[in-house]
């Protein structure tokens, strides 16, 4: 939730606002942003029109808040304990596996919770694109930091480019999620995330060139 927007609210107010955002995020995921009306959000969240306009100026404002909420969802997914700090090939493979495990329950139902917003907002204004880019920046950085660490440890060769590999992982995920949703098939996302991890693996140091592991 957008902290600035909720700072001055009472606890009850915060709960109401959170409920509105939750309902809006779900509806937008199911039907798209264009297919979600403020009226419907109001009905589903069981709040009055004046309540909704108390918390959000308009649909654009609500959409931006949903982008923020989904950004948090992505961050939360990547802080699952089994993914560690995303700084080993095993952790990256666990990431790919975790995505594949969600294919039927999430991706075939509506694509990526974050990427489907970005894809629909292709012609939105600069401020909304900035919001979305901030989420992608954070996501790319999560991977980049882990990959930098892997290279520092010598798990990856010096010619591995952490930034390039991080962007590869995120774009593979986003395109795979889009195609898996559109084609209603598990194949694209499974192929894409596994390929991205295998791509990282192709930069793994061979045992000979690998520096000895530190024991600590």
């Amino acid at each position, binding site marked *: 939730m957008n902290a600035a927007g909720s700072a001055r609210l009472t606890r009850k107010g915060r709960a109401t606002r959170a409920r509105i955002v939750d309902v809006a995020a779900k509806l937008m995921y*199911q*039907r*798209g942003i*264009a*297919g979600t009306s403020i009226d419907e959000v109001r009905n589903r969240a069981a709040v009055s029109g004046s309540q909704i306009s108390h918390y959000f100026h308009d649909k654009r404002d609500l959409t931006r808040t949903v982008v923020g909420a989904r950004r948090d969802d992505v961050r939360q997914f990547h802080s699952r304990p089994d993914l560690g700090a995303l700084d080993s090939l095993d952790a990256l493979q666990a990431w790919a596996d975790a995505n594949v495990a969600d294919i039927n329950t999430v991706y075939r139902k*509506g*694509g990526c919770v974050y*990427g*489907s917003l*970005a*894809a*629909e*907002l*292709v*012609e939105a*204004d*600069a*401020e909304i*694109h*900035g919001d*979305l*880019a901030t989420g*992608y*920046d954070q996501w790319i950085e999560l991977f980049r930091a882990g990959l930098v660490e892997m290279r520092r440890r010598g798990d990856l060769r010096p*010619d591995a*480019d952490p930034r*390039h590999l991080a*962007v*590869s992982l*995120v*774009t*593979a*995920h*986003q*395109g*795979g*999620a*889009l*195609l898996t*949703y*559109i*084609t*209603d098939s598990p*194949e*694209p*996302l499974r*192929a*894409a995330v596994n*390929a*991205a991890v*295998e*791509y990282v693996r*192709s*930069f793994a140091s061979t045992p000979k060139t690998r520096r000895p592991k530190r024991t600590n």
Partner: protein
Amino acid sequence: MAPVAVHDERPLTAKGRATRDRIVKVAAELILRDGLSALNMDALRKAASVSGSQLAHYFTDKGALIRAIVARQIAVVLDFHRQPKLGGLDTFDDFERWIDLNMRYLRRIGYSGTPTYHGLAGQLAKSDNTMRDTLAAGYSQWIELLENAIRRMRDRGVLVAHADPRTLALVIVSAHQGGATLAFTYRAEWPHADAVRFAVNYLRVFATDPADRVPRAPRRPRGRRVKPTAP
């Protein structure tokens, strides 16, 4: 102009085809600008300078029109892949050129105003299930084109025997579409550059010749992130 798919299309004269193509092009631009829900036949009629009866003659309803838009857009993608400069798209040199031409195309169309397949997919996918099927059919054609090209590479021994053409085709189309989604979000080319480089380098993992297997370095375009400016 790219040929449109033949479904729900009657035989047309050259002039009829031109009119129909103009309607489809204008409609695609309207959807891009204002969204699908804002597309109404009146606005389209005016923007494309056709009469109501002409419009009704070419498209029985909005659904038929939107199917034609998607068909036109996937034809643009398929034509791009079939252009003579790309050869048969079945050597590593062809795929390196595929990267260059993708980046050149992106620079040419910019990030606004020109319909793209990922843009249509992102905007239309959730409008209804028929739309999703129509978009899926387009992706299937694209995947199949690449699958066939990659199979030829494998059959000629350019790729190792265990290379799976379908999986590789899925990876390439996915990377392309994900790269496009981020590029259009950032209004910058680097995400697409990284994504298509990943796609081709991943194909290289399956090269028979060790020299082909060496990953090519991603080009680092200047200015990673364009700061959003007020509209």
